[in-house]
């Protein structure tokens, strides 16, 4: 039974359980709800939850875990000789997947009988041709060992699916039965329902943790397989980036880090003064009417998707900088440049810096401002000598957060900065960043066993670690700062 069907059956059981449980409780109380411990709805919910929740959880976990288990069982079966011939285990396994999928599809489309598919032999049938008929193209003829692996893959998968159906249905019916049996006028249904509900809530909160775990695991595992093929010191200290498909790629991260740092620096040089001054003006000087207009307008900038900024860089800012700055000054004639991407990214960060600074400046107590103004200081003296120093930790935290944003930003640099990895001082030269290379290495035709693809995960890991470090640092600083005035 497929997962969708199982899901549907569980839902039906749950809905039925709701009504049956409620009816049973009412019946037991002779229709008088005052005799029940809990409201009737709780009895219904109790049965429904008992039927649905454990079964659905097992279904989900099983669905996620089964591929992993099968993978490890089948990959043990593949003889080393085949692995050597094809090159890498994961290439063999992707063939195994395709053959197994092709056979299943052939059976479901009626192109083969299921017995024929189970006993198919490479000697007797041209499997490649038969599978191509049902729309599963294979790169080469099928190796008998691979076919064996595919068959056992199908076998285990079928057994797994059946076991899953049995276990899940058993759980659903069992849960239903137990809850139904427990239902009675003195049963404290509300307590159980609330307990179950709380577990669901905890699980929802746990998804945040799972996401982080997923990110870390996927980055670490794939990076490990990258570093097993490419030496780490060449990655971290290499000064050339030139991937090619002959297999002698130079994958040094330094030029990418340089580009990332350069673009981010320009972005911050634009965004920090503008954002900070805008925040100061709006919170300390502007009248209510100016504030009511200007503040939302600047905040709109924050809601504009980065692809829009990217297009803006590509079609407007890039040519503008090239025609009016780079070419007259003899600094190159590329529309894609660090300056383009940095400037546009700076604009994107203005609202980010200004709204963070605004919060922070507003957190400085009014009494400090009054104290300074009461001594005869002008507003700007008050801001520069009292407000800003008092808010400094918070502002530094905001700048760190903005830096982390800039480093992780993708679309603006993809469209604005260029693709040439280069370490240059000229801001009107096209350079590239870590995020651009992650995109370019992972889009298009990718082969998940070559270092040229896997390097993207190592880049992602680097990016993740750097931004995480900045975020944590910023959060600590800001939190400390807030405590100071609370």
């Amino acid at each position, binding site marked *: 039974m497929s997962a969708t069907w199982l899901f549907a059956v569980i839902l039906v059981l749950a809905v039925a359980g709701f009504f049956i449980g409620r009816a049973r409780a009412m019946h037991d109380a002779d229709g008088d709800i005052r005799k029940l411990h809990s409201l009737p709805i709780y009895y219904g919910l109790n049965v429904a939850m008992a039927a649905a929740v454990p079964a659905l959880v097992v279904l989900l976990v099983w669905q996620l875990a089964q591929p992993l288990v099968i993978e490890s069982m089948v990959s043990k079966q593949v003889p080393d000789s085949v692995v050597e011939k094809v090159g890498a285990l994961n290439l063999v396994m992707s063939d195994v997947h395709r053959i197994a999928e092709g056979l299943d599809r052939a059976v479901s489309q009626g192109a083969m009988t299921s017995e024929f598919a189970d006993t198919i032999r490479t000697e007797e049938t041209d499997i490649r041709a038969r599978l191509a008929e049902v729309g599963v193209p294979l790169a080469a003829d099928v190796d008998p060992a691979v076919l064996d692996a595919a068959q056992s893959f199908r076998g285990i998968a079928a057994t797994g699916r059946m076991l899953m159906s049995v276990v899940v249905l058993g759980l659903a019916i069992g849960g239903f039965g137990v809850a139904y049996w427990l239902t009675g006028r003195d049963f404290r249904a509300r307590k159980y329902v609330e307990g179950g509900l709380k577990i669901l809530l905890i699980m929802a909160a746990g998804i945040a943790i799972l996401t982080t775990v997923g990110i870390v695991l996927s980055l670490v595992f794939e990076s490990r397989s990258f570093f097993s093929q490419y030496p780490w010191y060449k990655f971290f200290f290499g000064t050339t980036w030139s991937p090619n498909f002959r297999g002698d790629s130079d994958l040094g991260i330094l030029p990418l880090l340089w580009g990332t740092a350069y673009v981010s620096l320009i972005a911050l040089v634009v965004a920090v003064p503008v954002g900070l001054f805008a925040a100061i003006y709006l919170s300390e000087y502007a009248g209510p009417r100016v504030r009511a207009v200007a503040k939302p307008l600047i905040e709109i900038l924050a809601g504009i998707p980065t692809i829009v900024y990217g297009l803006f860089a590509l079609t407007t800012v890039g040519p503008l900088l090239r025609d009016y700055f780079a070419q007259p000054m003899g600094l190159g004639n590329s529309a894609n440049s660090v300056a383009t991407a940095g400037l546009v990214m700076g604009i994107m960060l203005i609202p980010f810096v200004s709204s963070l600074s605004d919060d922070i400046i507003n957190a400085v107590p009014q009494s*400090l401002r009054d104290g300074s103004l009461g001594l005869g200081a002008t507003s700007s003296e008050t801001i520069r000598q*009292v407000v800003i120093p008092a808010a400094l930790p918070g502002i530094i935290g905001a700048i760190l957060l903005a830096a982390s944003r800039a480093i992780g930003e993708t679309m603006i640099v993809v469209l604005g900065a260029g693709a040439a990895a280069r370490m240059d001082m000229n801001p009107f030269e096209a350079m590239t960043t870590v995020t651009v290379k992650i995109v370019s290495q992972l889009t298009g035709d990718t082969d998940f066993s070559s270092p040229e693809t896997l390097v993207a995960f190592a880049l992602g890991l680097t990016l993740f670690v750097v931004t995480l470090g900045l975020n944590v640092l910023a959060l600590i600083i800001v939190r400390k700062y807030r405590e100071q005035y609370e």
Partner: protein
Amino acid sequence: MNDMTLMDRKVTTGTVKISAREVQVFYGDTHAIKDVDVDIEDNTVTAFIGPSGCGKSTFLRCLNRMNDTIDVCRVKGSIKLDGQDIYDSKVDPVQLRARVGMVFQKPNPFPKSIFDNVAYGPKIHGLARNKTELAEIVEKSLRRAALWEEVKDRLSAPGTGLSGGQQQRLCIARAVATEPEVLLMDEPCSALDPIATAQVEELIDELRQNFSVVIVTHSMQQAARVSQKTAFFHLGHLVEYGETGQIFTNPVDPRTESYITGRIG
């Protein structure tokens, strides 16, 4: 402290420093101060008393235009400092506040060192020609605020690290350092414990030698202890203004009497 009975207290008949005529203050649509006339004398401690919300703090903040920082606040009428209307459109509030200093309800030392806190005013107003002079001003101000002995060894420590009473005296030192003529104090002891309060009250009495002091307080005892003149505010009106002794022992207005005896408030 002052052990004299109220009736014995010497009444200063100094010169008028600030004279207010027909002052009205509006907060948006609220009429907060109604038609207040008052003359504040030099070298005198004048106390503003009254129940909370009576407008005494609002009126105090009018005297150095601190209300300018509130968008919805409007002031009408005339307030003259040494005969000059401080609400004249040509008057610079910055210059005004250098002459009319202010100490606030809650001690609000800047997050800087003790020295920098006191030096802040002289620095922005350019009162010292060099570092030595600045150090002299700081010392003199701290002495005037009776804080010097306690902090002279740790002038570079943060001002926020002092105790509440010390912080408030630091704020007074900070205000005194700019050599104002009038010192406005908005309930300067309300956030302090009794011992710190006693110290600050003693200080206020000494400050009278050099400044005209206006103090807002909701403690009648405090008004009686430190002031020579008392003004009683009620619902935005200045109900009664006169010698402190006379207000407390022989009030003219029945509302004043009710307040003094604790029937309204």
